[in-house]
């Protein structure tokens, strides 16, 4: 990540000060939230499907060794070449080496968050290979020279007005009319011949089907199909947690994934890639490579709490429904994955020390868990990071000191009553017209809102008196 060393809080404040960003976030996540809500009214079996989806993923995760080997066997039988990468660097090096081996001048890429995770865009650029992002939103990200801000809508942070300007600057034959159709047509004109002239295509996978060795990719633009068909070589990169036992299982997961992500019943395109071009096929790649990436996943597998995160389908529902994400957008999170799921994953990839804010910048309201299609207890996992951060001494000394005193006092009821009485007296000293004003220590609250004055005496004190009189 090329993030300047700016603190999370500062990044957050910059995002909060950007009204255009807020408009962009609200348009995308608001639409996603509404569409998902409608889809759920037409999906009465959601709870049952979610339970099944959770069990399927849990089963696969518990038997990952078995399914990985089964997948590898079947993929090889279909003519694919399977590569294993234990780290992000290893994975991107394998892909770059395959591109070089194929003498690739130009590669087309289908949006894949795993590709972002392993730093593939950067690695390809470094290797001097022309990289063409074919997903419309990724095309916008590439034009802007920035990073995805959402895992389903990578260019969520751009309004269509901003995109229009970008296209006018960058496209050879830009749109004349300010309509979405005209803008899409402009991108299509720009990208179409590149689709056809690429040497290698690189895609991700939404599912890896163990019993056929196929990979499954969903898109709404058809770019995955157009990207992966003409070039001589197709490389798939996928996290090892993407496995499902069979195509049937993939379809159940697809119902959960698509409705949770966009609210649609199905994506426009659901494509299964199984091996390279066979004799008699009219098209398809001559070489088909699958790079299976660990990058911290087996470490998560060994952790009883984080293991649950391996169920994640990358639908983005958690972020669409997160009050914090909807104020900040994705870049503030600083990692590959933003929002609640990103707050769980980023410490795995980037280390807890530099991402400890993510677990704390959460109100623990539980909405993410409620909408998660595989019922990942995200708040519990975030609290797990808070625990670890506390144990590893990463939390500020002031917090440790304050909570230590608090526990000492709260373990002694008389002292606690005395402390409450003093706090009330002090707050009332600073009170005017029912509100506490200008009291030191309350600044973080009163900067933005009023703090009510407490009653003259505590409940416990008044209760003691009133019960004496009963």
């Amino acid at each position, binding site marked *: 990540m090329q993030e300047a060393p700016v603190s999370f809080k500062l990044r957050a404040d910059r995002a909060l000060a950007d009204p255009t960003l807020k408009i962009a976030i609200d348009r995308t996540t608001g639409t996603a939230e509404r569409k998902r809500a409608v889809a759920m009214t037409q999906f009465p079996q959601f709870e049952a499907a979610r339970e099944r989806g959770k069990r399927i993923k849990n089963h696969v995760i518990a038997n990952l060794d078995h399914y990985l080997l089964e997948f590898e066997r079947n993929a090889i039988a279909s003519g694919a070449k399977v590569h294993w990468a234990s780290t992000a660097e290893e994975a991107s090096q394998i892909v770059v080496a395959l591109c070089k081996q194929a003498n690739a001048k130009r590669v087309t890429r289908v949006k894949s968050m795993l590709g972002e995770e392993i730093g593939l865009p950067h690695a390809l650029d470094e290797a001097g290979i022309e990289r063409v992002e074919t997903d419309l939103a990724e095309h916008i990200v590439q034009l802007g020279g920035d990073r995805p801000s959402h895992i389903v809508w990578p260019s969520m942070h751009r309004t269509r007005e901003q995109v229009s300007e970008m296209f006018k600057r960058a496209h050879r034959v830009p749109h004349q009319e300010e309509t979405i159709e005209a803008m899409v047509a402009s991108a299509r004109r720009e990208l179409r011949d590149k689709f056809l002239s690429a040497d290698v295509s690189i895609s991700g996978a939404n599912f890896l089907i163990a019993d056929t060795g196929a990979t499954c990719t969903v898109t709404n633009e058809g770019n995955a199909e157009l990207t992966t068909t003409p070039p001589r070589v197709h490389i798939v990169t996928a996290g090892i947690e993407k496995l499902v036992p069979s195509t049937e299982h993939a379809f159940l997961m697809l119902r959960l994934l698509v409705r949770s992500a966009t609210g649609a019943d199905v994506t426009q395109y659901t494509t299964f890639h199984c091996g390279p071009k066979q004799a008699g096929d009219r098209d398809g790649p001559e070489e088909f490579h699958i790079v299976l990436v660990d990058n911290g996943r087996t470490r998560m597998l060994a952790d009883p709490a984080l293991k649950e995160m391996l169920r994640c389908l990358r639908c983005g529902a958690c972020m669409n429904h997160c009050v914090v994400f909807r104020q900040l957008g994705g870049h503030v999170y600083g990692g590959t994955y933003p929002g609640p799921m990103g707050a769980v994953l980023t410490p795995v990839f980037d280390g807890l020390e530099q991402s400890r804010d993510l677990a704390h910048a959460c109100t623990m309201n539980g909405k993410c868990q409620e909408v998660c299609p595989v019922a990942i207890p995200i708040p519990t996992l975030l609290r797990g990071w808070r625990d670890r951060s506390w144990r590893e001494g990463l939390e500020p000394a002031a917090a440790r000191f304050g909570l230590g005193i608090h526990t000492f006092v709260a373990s002694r009821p008389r002292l606690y009553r005395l402390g409450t009485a003093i706090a009330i007296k002090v707050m009332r000293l600073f009170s005017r017209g029912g509100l506490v004003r200008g009291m030191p220590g309350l600044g973080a609250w009163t900067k*933005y809102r009023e703090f009510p004055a407490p009653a003259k005496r505590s409940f416990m004190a008044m209760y003691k008196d009133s019960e004496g009189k009963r």
Partner: protein
Amino acid sequence: MTTPQSTSAPPSSPRVGLFVTCLVDAMRPSVGFAALKLLRDAGCRVEVPEAQTCCGQPAFNSGDTADTAVLARRFIETFEGYDYVVGPSGSCVGMTRAHYPEALADDPAWAERARRLGERTYELMSFLVDVMHFTPGDVKLDASFTYHDSCSGLRELGVFAQPRTLLDKVSGLTLKPLEGNDVCCGFGGTFCVKYSSISNAVVTEKTAAIERSGAQLLLGGDLGCLMNMSGKLKRQGSKVRAFHAAEILAGMGKGPAIGEED
């Protein structure tokens, strides 16, 4: 998420330990007295154990499991002897019910005690409706109100219909629906001061929705969230007044609202 919905007859004069909660104790005792009155009206023998302090939620949410366990064990010892434990806060009750077994997981005997006590620990509104089948007596208040469903009560305890059922019995009181009633207000305990600018952005959207509801009163079941929302409303010069739902049900709706001079 469990919605405790008992169909059996309410227990006859159960012994209830009132879990006052820190914020109610220090900031707004009227909520505690309202809870006391409602529980007594519902036929409970209510006691307020003097040994109670804080449930440990600040420590738990900071990742300080050791201090949480100290306070959790204290809470269990203090309240274990009662038939029921009832508190006027979804978040504090959620802490003891949903999270004590987690916080004490290293000690199976204590975790089991926590689980057993949790089964008898209720948020006030849900206890009154689900366990006591209580209907408030002759309460009148001519006002319109909107209701914010605080997250812990809603998602950890299934508190949604109960406060509405009770408030519906107050004559003269009409509900104006709140857009995004189940969306977090941005309080989040220490979150609101640790990340105050983010919290402010969230509560600003919430108060806009409250204003759009056109209601005169904002009601809820958690004092923390109510202080956050009413604090923002006050800063914005709003006329909307905030109360804990228990205060309205106990006939205290004519008194000062949160942030008004007593």
